[in-house]
Structures are given as structure tokens and as C-alpha cells.
């Protein structure tokens, strides 16, 4: 803050009446009783997503050409973006507020684009905790449970009679999900969470009981294979044997209806994530449990913003480019065009409108890509920024 400029004589005066200092010495922030809070509000697409993915955030990363960060952000909550990006029934899109302007943003196509093209996220190096967990069944639910446990530093082994991870997805042929995508997605998940595998022959050596295992907890994914199929029966037998003297969690409590349907993939992943949280609790790892529970609950505790919060008159109509993609992964150009259609409901996307309208220059972006900061010494709390925000990312609070 600069001092009030001293004027000692006529010679200090400018000929033209202009400011010769600035007004930073005037602490107008003392007049304030409400303060702008630039914090993300919840977009309807996030509320609708079974996994709670904050789509505006990853879309904004994509717009800023940071695909790696965008994919990382998705994979904090979703272990299988390339599969949900193809199979999910995308309830996010049906709640997209852009429908009030022209048509919804094709969020699923953007997720798929990132999964197929973004740089692989760096392998996480989990803290090696002593707790060891076996997941019986390598279906989407079991893999998801293993992924979230692995990321919390738990040593996890996934066991399945099939040679490949994926559970029932390995056994069925789906036009929308080529086998190489299933392999890529499961491999990525396994590598990111440092998951050990006992598949096929390795799995069957478990049956012999010849190896001692230090597992403290067994998770049995009862949805890994079609009911009454050979692999399903095998897993049930193994589960009853291994669970002797160990903690056991199965999927009875978290299994929603129709979980075998491929388009329910996100629900299965969410159920696996929930099971991972319960496992952490059962193991008495309260710090890890709270961390994962916080992740699951983020964006679930507030109501989402509604159409009346969006300043539709400030946006131009813009047709989606995805109709031309013929179910191919979008090109970079198409993905950016689609991403730019996102209204970023409730999420500051650094559009800068609040900076332009602040009458006291009390908002500034000090770090590239970081939301504006409020100058508390000078902000009078007039609320113009909150009114002018096209997407309700600013609220006036006490």
C-alpha cells in the first residue's frame, strides 16, 4: 500500500486535473458488511453423476489445454473413465443447464476424449501400510474398491478365476467397448493403485491352500460375474474359505438394482468406492477413511444451482459438434469446441467479468489459472461482482 502523495506547492500540481497518486491509502474495506466468496457452487451435472464428478472443472482444465490435469481430476473419483465415457447412461447430460439455451454439453464425449488422449497420470506411490486386503472378483465394482484402497496406501490383491481383469465385461461382447479399451482401462487402474493380481492359474493356486496370506480383510465382489456362472460360484467358495478368521465385506449392502447392465458402470464404480470406505473403517484406519469419505461426499452436501442462477442472455447459442463424430473419439478441435460450450455452472472459469465490473479494482488474478482473489482492505462489499457473474460462482457472505 502506497502512502498518500504529498503536495507541498503549486509545482507539484499537474496542469491537467488527473490523479497523481492512488487511493490505496483509503481503507474502504472498512465499509463492508458482506464479502464476495468466489467458491465453486455445485453444478447440476455433478449432482446427477453417480460418481460426483465436477464436470465444469475438468472441462475448464481441457479448455486451458491441461488434459493431464483434467484426467487426473476425473480419476480422483472415477477409476474407469474410458469405460464410463463409452457405456454410462450419462445422467449428467440430462441435467445440463445449457439445455435452457440450445442443447446439453456432450460431457461423456469429453470424458472419453480425455481418457483416450490425455497423458497417463503419474503412478501414485502409496504409503505402504501394513493392512492387506484381498478383493475377490475383478468386475468393475471390485476393481473400483481395490483402486480406492490402493490409492489410500493399502496393499491390495485382486483375485479372479479369469485370465483378464474386468469380470463380466470380459465375457460379453459390447459394440461400444472394444476389448483393447477394456485392457487399457483396467491396466491403468491396476498400475495407478499398485494392485497385485492373482488371475487364472495364480488364482487357482489359492484354492490349493498351499500359500499363506497375510490378508486382514476380504472383499467379495458378488457382482463380478453373472449370477450362477462358474467364476461366480468359484469366488463364493473361495470367499467362504478365506473369510475364516478374517474380516469380510460383500456387496449385498451396496449393490443397487441392475448392476450387471453395462450402462450402470458408474453406479458399480461408486458402489466399489463406498465399499473401500467401509473397508477402511473396518480396518480402523480412521484418517484414510475420513479422507475417502470426504472425497465421496464432496459436492453432495449442498443443493445445486438452478437455471435462474445462469445469466443466459450473456451467452450465444452454439451447436454441438458431436453429432458429426459418428461415435468416434473427438478430435482435439472438436473436443475444445464442445468444451467451450460448457456454461461452467457455479464454477469460476476465470472469465474475468467480475474483474471488469469491480468499481474498486478489488478483484485480481494473481496466479495463472487460479480464481480471482478479493482485496479485503479495499473491497466495499457492493456485490456487483456477484451480480455480474454469469454463472453464480460468487456469493455475498457475512
Amino acid at each position, binding site marked *: 500500500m502506497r502512502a498518500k502523495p504529498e503536495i507541498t506547492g*503549486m509545482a507539484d*500540481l499537474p496542469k*491537467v*486535473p*488527473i*490523479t497523481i497518486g492512488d487511493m490505496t491509502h483509503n481503507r474502504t474495506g472498512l465499509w463492508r458488511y458482506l464479502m464476495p466468496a468466489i467458491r465453486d457452487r455445485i453444478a447440476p451435472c455433478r449432482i446427477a453423476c453417480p460418481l460426483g464428478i465436477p464436470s465444469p472443472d475438468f472441462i475448464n482444465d481441457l479448455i486451458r489445454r491441461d488434459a493431464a490435469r483434467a484426467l487426473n481430476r476425473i480419476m480422483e473419483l472415477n477409476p474407469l473413465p474410458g469405460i464410463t465415457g463409452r457405456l454410462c447412461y450419462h445422467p449428467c447430460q440430462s441435467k445440463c443447464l445449457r439445455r435452457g439455451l440450445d442443447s446439453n454439453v456432450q460431457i461423456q464425449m469429453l470424458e472419453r476424449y480425455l481418457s483416450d488422449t490425455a497423458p497417463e497420470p503419474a503412478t501414485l506411490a502409496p504409503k505402504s501400510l501394513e493392512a492387506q486386503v484381498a478383493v475377490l472378483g475383478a468386475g468393475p465394482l471390485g476393481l473400483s474398491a481395490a483402486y480406492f484402497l490402493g490409492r489410500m496406501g493399502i496393499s491390495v490383491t485382486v483375485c479372479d478365476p479369469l485370465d483378464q481383469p474386468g469380470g463380466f465385461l470380459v465375457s460379453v461382447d459390447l459394440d461400444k467397448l472394444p476389448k483393447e479399451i477394456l485392457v487399457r482401462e483396467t491396466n491403468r487402474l491396476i498400475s495407478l493403485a499398485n494392485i497385485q493380481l492373482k488371475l487364472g492359474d495364480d488364482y487357482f493356486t489359492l484354492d490349493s491352500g498351499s500359500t499363506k496370506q497375510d490378508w486382514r480383510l476380504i472383499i467379495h465382489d458378488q457382482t463380478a460375474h453373472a449370477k450362477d456362472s462358474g467364476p461366480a460360484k468359484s469366488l463364493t467358495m473361495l470367499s467362504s474359505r478365506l473369510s475364516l478368521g478374517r474380516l469380510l465385506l460383500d456387496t449385498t449392502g451396496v449393490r443397487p438394482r441392475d448392476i450387471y447392465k453395462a450402462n450402470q458402470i458408474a453406479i458399480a464404480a461408486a458402489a466399489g468406492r463406498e465399499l473401500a470406505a467401509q473397508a477402511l473403517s473396518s480396518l480402523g484406519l480412521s484418517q484414510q477413511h475420513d479422507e475417502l469419505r470426504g472425497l465421496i461426499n464432496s459436492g453432495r452436501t449442498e443443493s445445486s444451482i438452478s437455471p435462474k442462477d445462469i445469466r443466459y442472455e450473456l451467452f450465444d447459442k452454439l451447436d454441438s459438434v458431436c453429432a458429426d463424430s459418428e461415435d468416434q473419439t473427438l478430435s482435439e478441435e472438436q473436443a475444445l469446441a464442445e468444451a467451450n460450450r460448457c456454461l461452467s455452472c457455479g464454477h469460476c472459469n476465470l472469465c474475468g467479468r467480475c474483474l471488469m465490473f469491480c468499481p474498486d479494482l478489488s478483484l485480481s488474478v494473481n496466479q495463472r489459472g487460479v480464481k480471482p482473489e478479493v482485496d479485503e482492505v479495499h473491497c466495499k462489499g457492493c456485490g456487483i461482482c456477484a451480480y455480474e457473474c454469469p454463472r453464480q460462482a460468487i456469493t455475498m457472505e457475512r
Partner: protein
Amino acid sequence: MEKVLTGTETAAEAAALARVEVVPAYPITPQTVIVETLAEMIGRGDLDASYINVESEHSAMASCIGAAAAGARTFTATSSQGLALMHEVLHYAANGRLPIVMVNANRSLAPPWNLYCDQSDSLAQRDTGWIQYYCADCQDVLDSIIVAYRVAEEVSLPVMINMDAFYLTHTSEAVQLPDQEAVDAFIPKRIKPVLNSDQPVTFGNVCGADLYTSLRYIRHHDTNAALEVWQNASDDYAETFGRSCPSLQTYKTEDADTILVVAGSAAGTLRLTVDQLREQGHAAGVMRLAMIRPFPAGLIAQTVSTAKRVIVVERGVSNGMGGIIGQELKAGLFGSRNGLEVWSLFAGLGGKDIIPEEIAAEVKSVAAGEKTNGALNDNSIWTGLLS
């Protein structure tokens, strides 16, 4: 180059020779041809300038202020009601120390509606802080506009060049147009932008009484000093172009008992009147007051030092006080020539033609002691009243 041009065309030529960069304008009779001619020049590409069609004279001057603050050489023209509408922003331009040059065609104010010559419009703006010059003829229009840019940019004050409606605006005369190179050399652009995005400042910000008073003192001082700056610029102009725009012009005043005073184009008519009076044995002269602000009181005092009386041929009235230029003259001479008779002769309001014989008759009557203070008790003489 010599061309036959009307006063309005001359004003446009002068602005073009000054290479003005921004022309925000709103049309009004009788100046419209000035801005129309400039619009054509800009439209044809002969003049590299921005022409801004604005919605009123107030906006025209507001745009001039913005353009000049951004460092552009700016020109506009108006008249009468248009000038009156600008009143607020005229102060802004002068207090903002912006070197805008504007031509005002002197026309009466309504009601009743009257398009003709009258100087009440610009004289009512005396206190806005503009330098005011009143032209004698079309050539003077051209010369004074060029001199005005030199002075405006040197003292950072706006200049109003006044020309009589129709007598100058719509009268064609032979006008000498100087070479562009010579004009460029005479008025190199010297505006420093006030507004500069690299060093942001607030223009016209708030300040308290102490700074306000000091700023007003500085402006008053600089406006007074502009008289000498104008004279020097006029002398320099004369050196290059052979013509000048003095703030005061005299004709046969050295030995005159009676000095006729006028601002504007009627000076020529009064010279003819004086020649007639001299033939009849009356020692008369003419003092053309070209500059009203800053007021050349010293020069006036010298000119009238031995005269018995001055008769101001008025083209504007300060209602409840008298002839405007007569009042200015009395104020300027107070203390130096207290015995001088000062008469206001209202012979040119609302476009009334000033006729030499009529004026001569009034002069002889005053000289013979036939005039009294009259019904108005303010040394005013009104000609052409209905009986």
C-alpha cells in the same frame, strides 16, 4: 493557392490543413457545411481522420474531450443552440486543459427562432475558460484556425473561433490557401496524451478546496498568459504566410475622438463608415476586438487613451445590464479611463444588417450631445425598433 470559398468551406479547409485526427460533430445551421465538407474529405480519403456521428452537440464536445485526452488533434463546429447545449462540457474541456479547436457560427438564440447573425451564443460562454477569437473575414477564418492549434497545444487550453452567421459562413471570398508543408511546419502536433494505458490515471478526479483553488489560479494565470502566446503565434504566422490574426485591430484610431468598436465581420463596414465620417469632418476610428478571452485590456487602454468616446456596435445583449462587449470594455478600462464615454449601439441583433449611413448618423448624433441615457438609463442606443 487562391480559391473562392465560403466561410464554412474555408473552416473545413483550415481543419484539413491542420491535419485534424478526430471530428465528432452534429449539424446545425449555419455551420453544417463545415462538418459536411470534412465528412466528404474523410469519406474520400483525402483526410486521414475519424469522423464521429454523435447524437447531440453535448456528445460532440464529450467526444472531443475523450479524443483530445487520448492525444488526438480534435476539431468540431457548432452554432447557437448547439453551443448552448454544450455548455456543461465546455467547462470540462477548459478545466481539463484540452487543446480542442472549435468553430462557432455566431447565430441568435431562440425563441423566437432566428437563424441569423448574433453573438449572444458565444458571449454567453465567456466564463467557460475557452480562448475566444472573432473573425473579420473568410481569410481570417483560415488563418486563425491554424494559429489556434499552435496556441491551444502550447497553453493546453481550448480555442473557439467565432465567425458571423451568413456574413461569413455563407459569403464567398477569395481565400489564400497555404501549402500543406508550410502548415505542417508551423503547427507540428504537440499534444501529450493525458490518458495512456501504460500509466493509468483518473481524469477529472475528486479534489478538495485547497487543490481546487490552486488549479483555478493556475488556469487563470495561463489563460491571461495566452494573450502573449497568441500574439507571438500571430507574428510567427505573419513571418511565414504574410498575414496575421492580432487580438486587436485598429483603423484610424490615433487621432480619433470617437472610436467605433466591434467584434467580427462588421469591422469592414465600420471602416467604410469611418471613411465617410472623416470626409464629413468627424475624427472617427475603428477598433476591432478580435479576442474576447483572454481580454486584451492593456491594448484597448492604449488605443482609446486620447479618445472622447467609444461606441460599441453590439451583437449581443446582457439583459438587465446592457451590451455585452460594452460591459467588458468598461470593466477592462475601469480606473484607467474613467472619463471615457462608452455607448452601446444595438444595431446588429438577429441578423440585422449594419448600414454605414445609419451608424454614421448615430455617431454624429452622439458627438453633437443629442443622445441622453434614454429610457433604459444605460448609455444604450437601439436602432430599428418599431415605433
